[in-house]
């Protein structure tokens, strides 16, 4: 799973710089990005000016006003602090990455490939070809055009085991900053200096490129609208009060206003977004935009490749089915002999199964005077010739075509066994010795443990899973049933995949998939969430909007959960913030009007000590709740795959009803403390 590459939630190395960051973010240019907090800043400045004026004139309740103004500034600083902490965690990762980005020398190939000259890495242009040998750092992102080498990619994946990079195929992409450990490769550069993968990664985790996501923009509009509504609610109060023959100090109006506007969510909104990206990064997935993370939460259909995601990498032999008159042991023996020299995983699994089931030991090929007959696309079979005997194993129709046509009964039997195996999702291989059919080896895809439960979970989340496989429909159906996916696409070509995505999207669904090959690129680009494997080709990595550094396709499921978590956290804190207002009204309104309408004291349901302590307590609560919720904003609300109705009911109870009740308790407690300390 993921390797924790960032500090824990409350790390002093992040918290202390964040305190400084909180002050630096008082810069109006950075505040203006957040309408709610900008408004808080404006009224804080206003009340500070009024306070100074009063102090010079020596009028007003200076001590009380001073404390209100102080807490207004704290509200602002706490909001900045939340954002700085979230950014700090990304910065720590970016710094680690930056250390790997040392200046390299590149061996630029000249003279049509005959020679090279050494140039600085940053001078390389897209299209240049460089030679990278053992011990060299790959100077920039590129594609291997010749050779094969083992590469240490720990710099980006945190995984120290070397990986193979070779020309052609799906493992041709190399990343600048990684180190070639053995052999050599020629690399065509695909990224100019400053725009390499690591550069992009640094700016992503640092949040430098952070743009507001569509949902964040919509939420900001809502919050700005709510702020405007409360502007109306507060600016009309002085006039209403003057009708009643009273007047309200500006500082009290500002206190009411700031507690009413949605400061809690306003303060934490950007921290939530940054933390969402950060959670993905710690999961070793890089999202190219926040938009992609949000889209992940909305995914309706998940396309999963069968191999490696749903099943273990390769088929394995699970049984020997002899024909009438042949013992299972004899079949196993022949099958083992035919597979000794077969280095494919399937071949090895036959040897192992024969050993496990019948205790047949491995034998030396030389001692048997055997010669191996390799598999070819024409014969579609492999085997051995030894001591004048020939043993062959292979596809049913290929073997039966060569078998002795006289043994019609055996032929029929092999066919019926093979059909039975195919129906249950296995792959049958026929075995024949000297033209006589011995029986059938059953190969099976092994469905990963626990995957069935994962799909049930996804179904409860409302996500449909579709298995993509090159198998024939019958085999695909059997595996699909065993794994518990909702649908499958058999004998899938890249075009089929693309068409499937388009069809789903036409129905209004959002589709997520992962892929690594160049032929996956169109589908990756078409899908709403396309996760490219880091081991994949450059084309695939460019087409996707996320890159999985661990190249683990199962992660799609976690990516979806992280996307949902991000949206849920925003919703929960917005609901909480709005629900808080009820208590704040009950704290401030009676206190505000007490001087001229003492009857309104009946609304002081919390029994707050004095009007001043009531107002001060409300504003202190409003500021402290931001700090109290920073951990939740960074960790995110936990996602439970229980269906939307149950999830909403639960969250409404916690954040809606909780949001109504908590401030009543909190403000009362602060009021007791304020009174006990004699602050007003």
């Amino acid at each position, binding site marked *: 799973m993921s390797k924790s590459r960032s500090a824990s939630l409350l790390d002093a190395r992040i918290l202390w710089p964040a305190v400084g960051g909180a002050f630096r973010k008082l810069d109006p240019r950075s505040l203006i990005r957040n309408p709610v907090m900008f408004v808080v800043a404006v009224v804080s400045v206003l009340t500070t000016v009024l306070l100074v004026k009063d102090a010079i004139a020596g009028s007003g309740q200076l001590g009380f006003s001073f404390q209100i103004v102080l807490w207004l500034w704290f509200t602002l600083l706490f909001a900045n602090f939340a954002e700085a902490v979230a950014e700090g965690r990304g910065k720590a990762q970016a710094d680690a990455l930056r250390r790997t980005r040392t200046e390299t020398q590149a061996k630029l190939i000249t003279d049509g490939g005959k020679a090279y000259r050494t140039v600085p890495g940053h001078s390389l242009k897209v299209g240049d070809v460089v030679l990278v040998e053992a011990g060299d750092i790959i100077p920039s992102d590129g594609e291997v055009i010749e050779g094969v080498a083992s590469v240490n990619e720990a710099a980006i994946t945190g995984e120290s085991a070397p990986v193979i990079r070779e020309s052609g195929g799906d493992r041709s992409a190399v990343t600048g900053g990684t180190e070639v450990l053995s052999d050599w490769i020629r690399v065509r550069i695909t990224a100019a200096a400053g725009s390499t993968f690591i550069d992009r990664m640094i700016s992503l985790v640092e949040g430098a490129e952070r743009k507001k996501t569509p949902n964040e923009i919509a939420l900001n509009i809502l919050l700005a609208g709510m702020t405007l509504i409360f502007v109306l609610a507060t600016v009309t109060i002085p006039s*209403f009060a003057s009708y*009643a023959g009273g007047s309200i100090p500006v500082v009290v109006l500002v206190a009411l206003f700031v507690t009413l506007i949605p400061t809690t969510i306003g303060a934490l909104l950007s921290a939530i977004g940054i933390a969402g990206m950060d959670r993905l990064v710690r999961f070793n997935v890089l999202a190219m935009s926040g938009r992609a993370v949000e889209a992940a939460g909305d995914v*309706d259909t998940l396309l999963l490749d069968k191999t490696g995601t749903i099943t273990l990498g390769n088929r394995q032999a699970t049984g020997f089915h002899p024909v009438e008159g042949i013992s299972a042991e004899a079949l196993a023996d022949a099958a083992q002999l035919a597979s000794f020299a077969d280095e494919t995983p399937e071949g090895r699994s036959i040897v192992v199964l024969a050993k496990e089931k019948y205790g047949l030991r491995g034998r030396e090929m030389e001692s048997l005077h055997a010669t191996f007959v390799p598999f070819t696309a024409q014969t579609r079979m492999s085997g051995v010739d030894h001591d004048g005997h020939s043993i062959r194993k292979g596809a049913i129709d290929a073997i039966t075509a060569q078998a002795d046509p006289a043994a019609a009964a055996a032929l029929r039997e092999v066919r019926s066994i093979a059909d039975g195996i195919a129906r249950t999702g296995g792959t049958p291989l026929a075995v024949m010795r000297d033209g006589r059919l011995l029986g059938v080896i059953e190969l099976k895809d092994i469905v990963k443990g626990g995957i069935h439960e994962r799909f049930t979970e996804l179904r409860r989340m409302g996500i449909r899973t579709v298995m993509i496989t090159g198998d024939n429909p019958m085999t695909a159906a059997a595996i699909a049933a065993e794994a518990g996916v909702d649908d499958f696409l058999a004998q899938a070509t890249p075009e089929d995949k693309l068409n499937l995505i388009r069809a789903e999207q036409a129905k209004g669904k959002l589709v997520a998939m992962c892929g690594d090959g160049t032929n996956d690129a169109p589908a990756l680009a078409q899908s709403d969430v396309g996760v490219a494997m880091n081991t994949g080709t450059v084309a695939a990595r460019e087409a996707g909007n996320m890159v999985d550094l661990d190249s683990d396709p199962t992660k799609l499921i976690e990516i979806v959960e992280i996307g949902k978590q991000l949206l849920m956290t925003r919703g929960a804190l917005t609901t909480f913030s709005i629900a808080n207002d009820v208590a704040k009204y009950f704290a401030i309104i009676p206190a505000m*009007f007490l001087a001229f309408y003492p009857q*309104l004291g009946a609304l002081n349901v919390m029994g707050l000590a004095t009007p001043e302590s009531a107002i001060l307590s409300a504003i202190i609560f409003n500021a402290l709740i931001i700090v109290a919720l920073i951990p939740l904003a960074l960790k995110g609300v936990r996602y439970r795959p229980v269906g*939307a109705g149950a999830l909403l009911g639960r969250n409404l109870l916690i954040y809606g009803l909780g949001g109504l009740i908590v401030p009543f308790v909190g403000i009362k407690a602060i009021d007791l403390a304020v009174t006990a300390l004699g602050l007003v």
Partner: protein
Amino acid sequence: MTINGWIQILVFCGIIILLVRPLGGYMTAIFNGERTLLSPVLGPVERGLYRLAGTAEQEEQHWSTYAVSMLLFNLLGFLLLYLILRLQGSLPINPTGMANVPPELAFNTAVSFVTNTNWQNYGGETTMSYLSQMLGLTVQNFLSAATGIALAMALIRAFARKSTRTVGNFWVDMTRGTLYLLLPICIVMTLVLVSLGMPQTLGASVDVTTLEGAKQTIAIGPVASQTAIKMLGTNGGGFFNANAAHPFENPNAISNLIQMVAIFSIGAALTNVFGRMVGNERQGWAIFAAMGTLFLVGVAVCYWAEAAGNPLIHALGIDGGNMEGKEARFGTALSALFAVITTSASCGAVNAMHDSFTALGGMIPLINMMLGEIIIGGVGAGFYGILMFVVIAIFVAGLMVGRTPEYLGKKIEAKEVKMAMLAVLCLPLAMLGFAAVAVVLPTGVSSIANAGPHGFSEILYAYTSAAANNGSAFGGLSGNTPWYNVTLGIAMLMGRFLVIVPALAIAGSVAAKKTVPVSAGTFPTDGPLFVGLLTGVIVIVGGLTFFPALALGPVVEHLAITAGETF
């Protein structure tokens, strides 16, 4: 409170619930252009009108064209009505010889009837000629109601459609709403009301000698026909100054019940039209349930407050409920029920004087209007109003299921949120904004009749009623002054068109969206959870804004009276 009172309230609720499906089905058929019982008679008329107007049933409009058509039509309606009022002295059908209406009052009245508000700064029987009543006011009663219904239909269609640029045809919706819905029901209702003793005549006022031998002029006129549409179209402008408290405008308990049912019928049925059109009637019932919850709470509080009466009067040894300003034939239960109905819907007809209600009893009508009259609401207006709250509720809470919020498969994004906030914002702006100015202006304060918080409530009520397009008056406020005529007129325009245009913009944007299929991950919007959520958001987002104002008005008045203080 009495059992009898509650039975009357529950009978009313029962009738409305029973009406929702049949009327909803009929309206769905009308607006889908399907054949109905009336098609053989009205079909040729309808097609003739389209030919005359140069439009066709199949012609569809983009939301902006729809909006421009609507605005243009309303502007012409306003100009026509304004001219009739200004010139009524020289126009026919004026047996009582009414003079021309002065400019500010004509502006206020014309805006008032075009916006479906029917705020009346005049006494009908002492200001308006029969021509003004029938050709001016009653016509606008029909057209403003049809406009509201048309708008609701455009929005409903938008949610039912997908990936399309059009939301319907304004002219077709107007024609169908008037021709098949409002006119037939009004004709039947007028006849029933006449049979219950309501006058319907073009004859002049009657001079009679009373039993004491005194001379009295009794105003009569085409009352029944105007009453029918005033209720059905949630207009509320009475023929007489005393509105539905006048015995000629509301003779008995049956006419009272018919009128109350008429106020709610179309608004309630629209929820069902919505459900049918989006293919799941439960969606409509969920919205109806949220409306119903708020309504019942309002009725309970109002009835309780009125039945409990005034402690200051109890102290004088007079027991019983608060009967000041109420008709003895209706009592506290039916007066409270009528008051809550008329302010839940944007009707504004009254059968008791709201000014005379207890502080809390009078606060309920005020709150109903402050919420934007989305509890059933004005015909059409209530429905598109509550959909604005639905958008906000879905957006706030929908995120909590971990998906981009969606309603009926339509993703709720920045544009919808922006427009919904705009619509929700304009009400406090008009209500609180104008009230804040009026309470500190001498010309504003001089119009009020009572000192202290009650006087404040009178001004607050006037602007709230105007901006919510209700039209009921708290009474006590002399509104026929240049200041109030003009500012109330502006408040009415804001409350009507600053909601309509954003609502249409949402319709346009929603119609163009794809429909996301429902899955287990979709937040269900047809269950009790959604009803609770919607109710909560309406109360917190729509209501909390007014908390300070309410605290300084009815709340402090109530607390003072309880403590035995007066102002």
